[in-house]
Each structure stands twice: as C-alpha cells, then as structure tokens.
C-alpha cells in the first residue's frame, strides 16, 4: 500500500525537533538557563525535585515577557534574540533558533510565570504543545519556568533516561559549564532542598572555579590574561602536576558559550608540551572572546560544537599563551604537596561541600514581588568586545549600555584579582650539591630551602634537549626500493593525502598515486630505520592526515625521548661529587629543567617554611586556626 505524502502536524514536528534539542533533563536545564541569561538576569536559581517525576524549576530575575507575548514564546521559530538573517553572523545571545521552549513544551508539562516588572504578571500552562489558559500572577520581575513529566508522551525517549543520580550529575555538569561562562551571574542549583552549587555572581571566575571544584585546586591554578587584536583570553590553567585522566577538564568558553572543540583542546595540550605525564590531561578553564562574526554556532541544535574561521590561529594563540605562562612559573613541585592524592569532585561530593556553605542570598522567589527602584541596573553584557558599544557623538555617552558599563565597573574591585600573586619571572634556583641518597637522588640546597633531584630524570632531560635537536637534523639522502611499498587508504583519506603530497614530498616521501586510493613508494629517506620502512612511512602519512603538516623533529620526538632515557644514568648508580655537580650545572642550563621528557618531576622542593614546620619550629597553620575558635 502506498501512503500518501502529507505535511506533519506542528505538534509532531515539534516532538521530532525536540528529539534533537532535548536529549535528557540536563538539556532542559541548559535551554532554560540560557534563556534566563539571554534575558539579562543577574540571579538564576535552578531547583530540581525528584518526586515521582522529576520537576525542574528555573527562576530568574531577567527582563521577563510582556503579557501579550507569552503565548508567542511557545511558538516554533519565535524569538526575540535575532530578527534578520545578518544577525546570524553576529550572535551575542546564547540562543537564537526559537526552538527551545516549544520543544520542551511539546514533550512535557510546562508552567511559565513571568513579568517584566511593569505590567501585571501572567501564568501560562502548556502541556504536550497545547496552550492552557492564561492566569494573572504576581508581578515579580523575571520568569519562572517549571517543567515536569518530561518525555511523558515520548516513552521511547523516557526509556533511555539513566538513574536519577546520573541525570543529576549531567545537570550539575551543565550548570557548572554555564556558571563558568557567566561568573557575573549568581547561579544556584538546588536538589531536593539541598544546595549543590552556588556562585556569588561577582564576576570573579576564580570564585566560581572554587565553588565548582574545590578551593584546594585554586592554589594549583595559574591565571592567564592575554589579548591580541583578534582574541582575548582570560582564565586559569592548572600547573602541569595538576592532571586528570580525561580531556573533560579542559573547559573552553567562547563568547560566554561552553564549547567542545577537539582542535582547541589539542592546542591547549600542546601548550603544555612535554610537561604533562603521558596519558594525563591538564585542568584548564579559559574564557575566550572573539569577534562573533568569525564564529558559527549554528552547527547543531545543542550549539556545543562550533565552527571557527580562525581555528588554527586561535589554536596557536592558545598554545603560545599557555607555554609562555608556564615558562614564567616556578615549576618545582612542593615536596609536601606532591604526594599522589586523588581529588575528583562528583556531583555528590559537590553536594556535601555545598551543604556546609552558609546561604549567601535568599532564593529569588522569596524576594519582594515589586521591583526595587533603588537597585542599580546591572548590565549583564558578557563581554565588552562581543557587544561593542559604539560611541560616535557625545549623546552616545548617555546610552544605557555606557551607563551600565560605568555602573558595573564602578563596583568592580580595583586591580586584577590575582594581583597579589607573584608574577616575577622565576628562574631555576642555583643549587649547591650536598650528597647522594641511595645512589638515586641528589640532595642540594638553594636559597629557598632543600631540593631533592632524581638523577635519572635530570640526565634524561639534559639528553632529551640535546637529542631533540639532533634527531630533527637528518640528511636528505634517499634509499630506492627494489620492490616498491604500496599503501592502501580509504577514499576520504586518499583525497587528503592527495592534497598533502607536497608536504610529504618535503620530508622525502614521494607518494605516487597507484590505482584508486592506493599509493606507491619507490624510495624512502635513509634516516628511517631498516626493517621499519613501512610502519614509519605509514606513521608519517597518518601524522600528516591528522596535523596537515609535519616536521621530522616533532615526528621523531618519541625517538629522542627513548634515546635520552637509554643513555641516562640509572637509579642505584654512584655519582662522585664532580659528576653530581656537573649534572646539576647542565640541568640548570636546560630550557625546561623541571620535568623529564615523560613529564615526571626532576626535582622537588622543601621550602624553609616546610622544614621549620616539620620540626615544629613554627606552629602548623592548621593548629593555629583551630586555636582561634
């Protein structure tokens, strides 16, 4: 039987589209909180209640919606955020597609209560896309959206929901991401009356990070601030010893939007170079500001993936920024802090931490319903560059944005939050050799205390810096092959290889097309080890497929690392005074004397304070604090 083609009903279309936008409760939270942020709220409360069905409540103090337009908000492709197609190229708001509310409303019970603070408030209930009746409500400025019975009419989706705890963890993660992107907004998350997260909304990213992770981590973060004509970056990068097992702790926020971008993550990791241990990833929170017209966020409905026109330049900028910042830092781990401690903050731990917090501000819902005229109008423009304030005539100075700007910054504390951090360029300490311990560690003293040096790691680093240069210098001679090597690739890979034949030729690899998707190699550079021709050439081609460029020095870095390890003195090897002193002198000349090429520390430091504390010459700070109470 042939079924006639017909147009889908709006309701069905909404449900289909909801499948893209709303995957799980966390998506609802994301969409609603983004709406609140776009409505210039300064305080957003998210309340999750697990009764029979999860109830999600998002309360903000934003601009609200005027009574006549409330129904329109639930209409597909209805939005206040953009109006012309050119707007798509300069999106300053988080949302713009006009899909979120109707999508949520098509698969859940939604109650919205809103007021712009001038007109009387209204309440509207929508269920499965059917508008209910509009009722008058309190005229508190802002919007409250309550979503319950999510997926009640799409049971297949409901089946895929994970346990309440997993979903809560996802929600927490979403709120964390939003909070990191908007330190100027006080965001709270409450679950069954328990506070999970609360940010102060004072525009201080450091405080937000402390709230999300823990305050211990703050000590191990380095502030980063750099701007060029094209990019501004502000944020914190973890010291190389603060590592995680996954890339998930690299948080990149572009123009207030938390994004996932593999190229940029790679660029961040590249900034750490060989300072990271193998298989470990840094913790990084960076807010990037770029020209919105150079950024395409309209890639997928959830908007986490973005396309960047200048992603290579931005990547280089990030790599450079991070490696410069790390160079400035004294990277000798404190001996007492360097013991391996696992710190992971799950949603549960966060809750427990949060339980101990005293409540900073009352929830908005309990605030007086009428607007307070004496409350300063806080601008919530997320970035100055993202939304340029044009001043052409003196009258422009009176425009609200300018006033808002002044008012906002009048309240900012003078000076950067990290002013008291040492920023002076720290250099490698001058070490006086004392003794060798167990034929493995060298003990040395410096002006700032005692140092233990791992002799193997130290020599590995010295060898590595020498060899890294050496392995990159290869002769251009080529060895012809009696029986050529043939490499087969997929059609897509073959096309990329075709485009990069010149790059490969530049390192002595002449690939000739050989039938469809295959290449033949008649000769290879002589530096490739005998017996490893095929695997090495394959690796080189893979390298080009991934990086689109290749340098023999980079490619052979692993060789350099291995060779430097082999040639280094091992543990349990006696060194006399002269040898040890020579080793320390050569270490001091290294570009990065702090880590071996595998990322392990070369030396640890006991500061004078540490030593004094150990012998109770000074009171432990912990004890003294307790005695105050």
């Amino acid at each position, binding site marked *: 039987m042939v079924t006639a083609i017909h147009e889908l009903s709006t309701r069905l279309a909404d449900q289909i589209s909801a499948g893209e936008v709303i995957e799980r409760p966390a998506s609802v939270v994301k969409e609603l909180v983004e709406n609140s942020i776009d409505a210039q709220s300064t305080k957003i409360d998210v309340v999750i209640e697990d009764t029979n069905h999860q109830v999600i409540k998002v309360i903000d103090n934003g601009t609200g919606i005027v009574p006549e337009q409330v129904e329109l908000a639930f209409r597909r492709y209805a939005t206040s955020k953009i109006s012309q197609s050119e707007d798509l190229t300069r999106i300053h708001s988080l949302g713009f597609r006009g899909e979120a509310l109707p999508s949520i409303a098509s698969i859940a019970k939604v109650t919205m209560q809103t007021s712009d603070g001038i007109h009387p408030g209204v309440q509207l209930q929508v269920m499965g896309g059917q508008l209910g009746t509009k009722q008058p409500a309190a005229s508190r400025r802002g919007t409250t959206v309550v979503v319950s019975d999510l997926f009640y009419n799409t049971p297949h989706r409901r089946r895929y929901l994970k346990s309440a705890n997993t979903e809560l963890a996802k929600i927490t993660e979403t709120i964390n991401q939003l909070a990191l992107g908007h330190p100027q907004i006080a965001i709270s998350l409450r679950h069954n009356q328990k506070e999970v997260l609360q940010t102060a909304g004072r525009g201080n990213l450091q405080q937000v990070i402390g709230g999300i992770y823990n305050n211990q981590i703050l000590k191990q973060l380095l502030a980063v601030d750099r701007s060029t004509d094209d990019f501004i970056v502000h944020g914190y990068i973890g010291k190389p010893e603060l590592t995680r097992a996954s890339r998930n702790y690299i948080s990149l926020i572009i123009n207030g939007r938390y994004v996932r971008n593999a190229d940029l993550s790679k660029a961040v990791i590249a900034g750490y170079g060989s300072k990271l241990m193998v298989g470990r990833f840094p913790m990084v929170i960076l807010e990037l500001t770029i020209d919105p017209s150079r950024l395409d966020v309209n890639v997928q409905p959830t908007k986490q993936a973005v396309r960047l026109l200048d992603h290579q330049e931005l990547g280089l900028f990030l790599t450079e920024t991070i490696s410069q910042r790390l160079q400035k830092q004294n990277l000798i781990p404190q001996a007492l802090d360097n013991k391996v401690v696992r710190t992971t903050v799950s949603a549960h731990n966060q809750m427990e931490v949060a339980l101990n917090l005293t409540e900073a501000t009352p929830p908005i819902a309990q605030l007086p319903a009428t607007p307070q005229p004496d409350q300063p109008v806080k601008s919530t423009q997320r970035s100055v560059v993202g939304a340029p304030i044009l001043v052409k005539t003196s009258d422009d100075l009176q425009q609200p944005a300018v006033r808002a700007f002044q008012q906002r910054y009048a309240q900012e504390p003078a000076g950067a939050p990290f002013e008291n951090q040492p920023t002076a360029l720290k250099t490698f300490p001058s070490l006086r050799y004392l003794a060798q311990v167990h034929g493995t560690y060298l003990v040395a003293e410096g002006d700032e205390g005692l140092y233990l040096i791992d002799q193997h790691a130290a020599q590995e680093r010295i060898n590595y810096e020498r060899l890294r240069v050496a392995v990159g210098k*290869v*002769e251009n001679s080529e060895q012809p092959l009696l*029986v050529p*090597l043939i490499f087969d690739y997929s059609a897509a890979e073959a096309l990329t290889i075709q485009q990069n034949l010149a790059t490969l030729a530049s390192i002595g690899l002449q690939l000739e097309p050989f039938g469809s998707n295959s290449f033949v190699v008649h000769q290879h550079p002589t530096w490739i080890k005998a017996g490893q021709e095929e695997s090495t050439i394959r690796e080189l081609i893979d390298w080009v497929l991934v990086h689109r460029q290749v340098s023999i020095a980079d490619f052979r870095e692993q060789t350099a690392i291995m060779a430097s390890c082999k040639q280094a003195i091992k543990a349990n090897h006696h060194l006399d005074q002269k040898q040890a002193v020579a080793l320390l002198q050569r270490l001091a000349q290294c570009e990065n004397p702090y880590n071996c090429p595998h990322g392990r520390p070369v030396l640890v430091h006991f500061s004078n304070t540490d030593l004094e504390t150990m012998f109770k010459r000074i009171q432990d700070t912990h004890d003294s604090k307790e005695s105050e109470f």
Partner: protein
Amino acid sequence: MNFSINRVAFIKALNVVQRAISAKTTIPILTGLKIDVTDHEIMLTGSNADISIQTTISTANPDNELQIQATGSLVLSPARFFAEIVKKLPDRELQVDVADQYQTTIKSGNSEFNINGLDANGYPHLPEIDHEHQIELPAKLLREVISQTVIAVSKQESRPILTGVHFTLEKHLLAVATDSHRLSQREVELESPLTSPADFVIPGDSLKELSRMLDDEEDLIKLSLSENQVLFTFGETQFYSRLLEGNYPDTSRLIPNSSDTKVQFAAGELLAAVERASLLSHESRNNVIKLTIKPADKQVMITGNSPDVGKVEENLEPQALSGNDLEISFNPDYLREALRVFGSVPVEVAFTSALRPFTIKPLERPDEFIQLITPVRTF
C-alpha cells in the same frame, strides 16, 4: 612403552629434535617431546608449528644399544626438562618405562626419576608429503645456497613473503631473496630435472635452522614438497618447514643485463676497507659511504664522512677496472654482508649509474651467484 638405550646416542637424537621445540608457544603440548616406540625403532618428534623435526633411533645400529620391551607413544613436557634429566643421568645406559596414566620412570644406575607424561594423541599430526616433487642435493651445496641467499631476506613481518627465500625448480634450482634494499640470487644446475616445475618460498628462519643441522652432513639431502610444507630428509632425520603463502615479486627484471663501469677486487680486501669506512658512517646521520671510481687514473677511493665525528678516505687497489668515471653512495652494511659470503675469492663489481643498483659476482662462474645492492641518492 618400555625400552633401554645408550645414553650418548639418545642425547644426540634429543639435541637434534630440540632445535624445533620452543618454550614459547600458543599450543602447550608443543613444548613437549613426542616419543613413539615401535617394534624396531624409537622416533622422536619436536615442533614449533613453523618447523618440525623428526629423528629415528633404530635397533639395527649396535651403537644405540636399543632394546625394546614394549611399544607405545607418549609426550614429555617440557622437553627441555626431560633432556636435562637425561644429560645428568649417571650410567652409560638408561631405561624408560611408562606405566598407567603416562607415569614415566627413567632409570639409570642408582638414580630413578618419576615424571608425568601426556597422551600423544593430543600432539598435532605432521603433514603428509607426497613424493612427486623431489630433488636431491649434496649437503654442502644446499648449505652454500642457504648461506648465500638468507642474508638478503627481509626481517619485516609487514611483508611476510619477503621474509623467505624464493625457490624455483625446473632445469635449474634458482634461489632468490630480497628485502628490497638488496637482492641475492643463486643458481644450481640439477642433475635430474623435475618433470613439472615447482615454485615455493621457505621462511628464512627455517633455512637458518636447517643450515645449522647440516654442518656435519656429507650425504645427499632429499627435498620433497607438498601444498604448504617442504620436507628435507637426511640420515635418520626429517626436517619439515611450512611454506610462505603469497606471490613472490618478479625479480628477474631487477638484475641489469649490462654495465658501464666494472671493478675487480679480492673480496676479502674490499670487505676490510668497507668495514673500516663503516666505522665512521655508523656514527653519521645516514650511514652512507661513497665509492669514487676513475678508470683512467686507475683509482678507486672509498670515503666515509660524519660531520660530527670526522672522515675516512682509503685508496683501494683493484685487480682490474674499466668503463666510465663514477661516484656512488650506498649503505656499507649491505655491501659488507654481501662480501662476507664470498670469502676470499675474486669478485667483479659492476655499475650502471649512480642511481641504479650495482651487482657483485664471483669472477669464476659468474652466472651462478649474483648480489644486487641499491645505492643511496644523496643531495
């Protein structure tokens, strides 16, 4: 199973079979030694799946002092352990007696070992070989063919076919090996040509193992073929090897027919000079030495240069030289390995151009043996 045997004769047979037995195998029973006792002989079998070796000890030979009381089959595992026991036993003779459940008693003098054996039915069967494709070669000649070609096999498992020596049998036996940087080819005239031609590739490792076993052999070696196995029979011993599957590249057109420059050396002298020059090239970044040939000036110079270490120059004294001037660079290790198999005989090195492979042949009977080496293109 119950037999007694002269210990020295038994150890000799054990040593032969043990060559095929490896402690590392994915089939546990292959770490063992298989013993089959029939009315008039004992057969020992060892295998590592790639090669299998079988040898028999007969009652006919009085040196063996073999007396068989009961027949039967058994696997003793690990073989190494059993061999160590036998080697350390005190008396001239030993007696092996297998009771129920493969409980094996080994007696010699006052010493008695009780060890656990395994059911021989669990041991893989050796391949059946048909005797249609069969040739006979003197042991010395086969050893020579192997040593001349096996140097050029590839050690790269990514192209498995090149890890073997390619044999073509028709009127002649032609053995070729190449790792695609150099090639080695040996030709032997067969006394009794095959009725139908055969073409197979034997793994280089199997040939090396076989060659070691042929050291003391003087007699004819019989070579028989099956679908995927080759069998060498000599004396009391049978040596099986798997064959490599796949098509061996056509190497016939790789060998140049003509040359523009020819130089004759005593192989040993050229080898010594190459070894000296490679001392330096090994320290350099690309392991290359250069040969400069000027027939008009009767001059051949070998140079090695390492920017970090220094350089070496040596004027060679060729026995004869003719043709055009030439400068050619190559990896000295390939030439060194090629020259070693020539011993001290005079050789002719023939070049076409700086970028074409060059050949080395013995002056006497140059059609029998040829080595080919690809040069390095330097910039």
